[in-house]
């Protein structure tokens, strides 16, 4: 541990590398967490199959690549397809559990996760696969620091998608309907909002965002039918830490988490990377609890 800290002290340039990698990792987490927060906030369903939707998107990207479509281009049709799939999933399944208690929807989405994993395993086999972007890397500071172009592009894409989402929710009629439903579904219904449509739309948008994230994951990391869980876990950590209904906070939390993981991996070793994620969540929850307590006391 001290050795690693000494490296950072002696060659501060490596901090830049950690930040660059961390931000690009965090950007992908942000997309996945963003979708989760949306669905969670609007429908109240905590989607345990989030990471598996990501993997599904990645595999659709692989299929597109097999037909000669560049993965970056494939993001658009994959997202469109995932949108339809998300809609279908809503109609077939989510709609039926939305009004039920927490455990029913948790069990249902857990079942969906298992089904997706096994379906991918049957369709594509258990091999670890990768998508090729074919882009090189960007060298900075005489090659001491570098980052692949695909990570830069991924970062940009995540920001664009997130920005588009924020604009859509703030400015468009449908976005307003979504926000209204999130605030109070009954009131929204009374005022003429088709909440069923809003729910379907939310879940479909989430699936599309996950699909896009999946293609990016395939280009940066690896795809395997059972590797979705890592993304589910991080999305939950991020959303829990950032709180619902605060999308900019979700993005910040995701980026922060990415950087924190890089630092803990560098300083403490890869074995502590995930422990850091969960440890951070714990600290944030305790801290929040303390804040709430103080507020309560002040009110009393």
């Amino acid at each position: 541990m001290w050795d690693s800290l000494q490296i950072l002290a002696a060659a501060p340039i490596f901090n830049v590398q950690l930040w660059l990698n961390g931000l690009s990792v965090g950007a992908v987490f942000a997309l996945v967490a963003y979708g989760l927060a949306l669905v969670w906030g609007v429908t109240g369903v905590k989607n345990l199959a989030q990471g598996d939707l990501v993997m599904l998107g990645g595999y659709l990207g692989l299929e597109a690549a097999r037909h000669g479509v560049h993965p970056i281009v494939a993001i658009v049709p994959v997202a469109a397809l995932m949108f339809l799939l998300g809609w279908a999933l809503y109609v077939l399944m989510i709609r039926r559990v939305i009004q039920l208690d927490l455990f029913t929807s948790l069990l249902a989405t857990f079942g969906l996760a298992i089904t997706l994993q096994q379906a991918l395993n049957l369709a594509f086999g258990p091999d670890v696969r990768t998508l090729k972007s074919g882009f090189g890397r960007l060298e900075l500071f005489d090659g001491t620091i570098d980052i692949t172009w695909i990570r830069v592009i991924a970062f940009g894409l995540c920001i664009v998608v997130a920005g588009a989402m924020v604009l859509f929710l703030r400015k468009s009629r449908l976005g307003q309907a979504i926000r209204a439903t999130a605030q109070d579904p009954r009131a929204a219904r009374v005022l003429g909002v088709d909440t069923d449509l809003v729910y379907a739309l939310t879940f479909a948008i989430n699936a599309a965002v996950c699909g896009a994230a999946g293609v990016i994951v395939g280009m940066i990391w690896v795809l395997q039918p059972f590797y979705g869980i890592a993304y589910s876990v991080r999305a939950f950590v991020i959303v829990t830490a950032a709180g619902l209904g605060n999308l900019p906070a979700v993005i910040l939390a995701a980026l922060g988490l990415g950087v924190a993981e890089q630092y803990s991996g560098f300083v403490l070793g890869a074995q502590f990377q995930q422990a850091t994620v969960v440890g951070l969540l714990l600290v944030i929850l305790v801290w929040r609890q303390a804040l709430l307590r103080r507020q309560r006391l002040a009110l009393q």
Partner: protein
Amino acid sequence: MRPAHFRMAALAAALSLAAPAASLAAENTIVLGSAISITGKYSQEGKNARDGYDFAVKKINDMGGVKVGGKSYKLEIKYYDDESTPARTAQLLERLINQDGVKFVLGPYGSGPTKAAAPVTEKYKIPMVEAEGASRSLFTQGYRYLFAALSTSEQYLAPVVDLAAELAKKDGKKPGSLKIGMAFENDPFSLDVRDGVVAAAKKYGMKIAVDDKMPRDLSDISATLTKIKALKPDVILFSGHTKGATTAARQMKEMGVSAPIVALTHCESAKLTEQFGAEAEGILCPTQWAETLKYQDRLFGTAMDYNKAMQAAHPEYKQVPYQVAQASAAIEIWADAFTRAKKLDPQVLRDVLAKTDLDTFYGHIKFDKSGKNIGKPMVLRQIQNAKYVVVAPTKYAAEPVVYPRKPPQD
């Protein structure tokens, strides 16, 4: 009646009829027993092992069988299907030993079933030669009746350290001046592999500069690689099954991380040459056996002869898996022991097996006290022009090692 029941019933009937004949046949037949995966998740691997066993038995019988104390015996194997579940392996071994009177046992497929089998053979003091269980934990229990033809997991990457030392000396550098950067998955197999590396590094006084353990569901090792990049080690080692190999190969290329020596386990199953092409060039990968090795024996000839004969008998093997070869070697070990024992007594055979010192097409066989084979090294293959070429240990090399590894270009 369901087919399975029917088969069982038919089997029972056949056994009761065959019983007198079997005891007659026992006059000049040695029966080896094995509970091995015919169905279940290891069915493919179990078939590999059985193909290896049967191939060697046929070859030995065709050449007149084994001579024990001046008398010739044919070999025969009695199989039961353990359905790839360790509990079943143990049950069926009890049956083989108690009901079928088997005195000599061949191992099942996989470390799990082998772990379940060993206590049974130990209990009845029946020697077992196994060829398909590599976990080191098999050999730390003090078993006296367990013998393994293959190299155990701690030997997977240790030869890389030896190779690095050898190459450093050639360059006029001290092996002790070398630095190692490595990361291993946090699971029993990879940690076994790590133990072997740590011991080897200690032997040469090498410094382990980066020593990370990767959680199973970690798909990003860029933090570890940044450390490696900062410390510029001479040797980079990764072991994390297929995912670890894929992630390491991809991210090393992306981050421009390389070293004069880079080695990974599971290159073949990660399909590195197919997925990464030029980016995988120069990576070293350990294997138990390769057909290009210069091992040989009287029964099969050279490793290449074995490979050809096996492919002629089983055209489905485009590349003969090492699991097949080591199963054949297990039969050779038994045959050699029978010949030297001069008596078909399990206790005598245990002691004779323990003294095995045998050259085979699969490599040299010599057991240490715990029963694992220390006679053959793991060999290293290097990816050269998208092919796996044996490069170390030097005396087995088909081609010289490409050293230092040229980092892949964009």
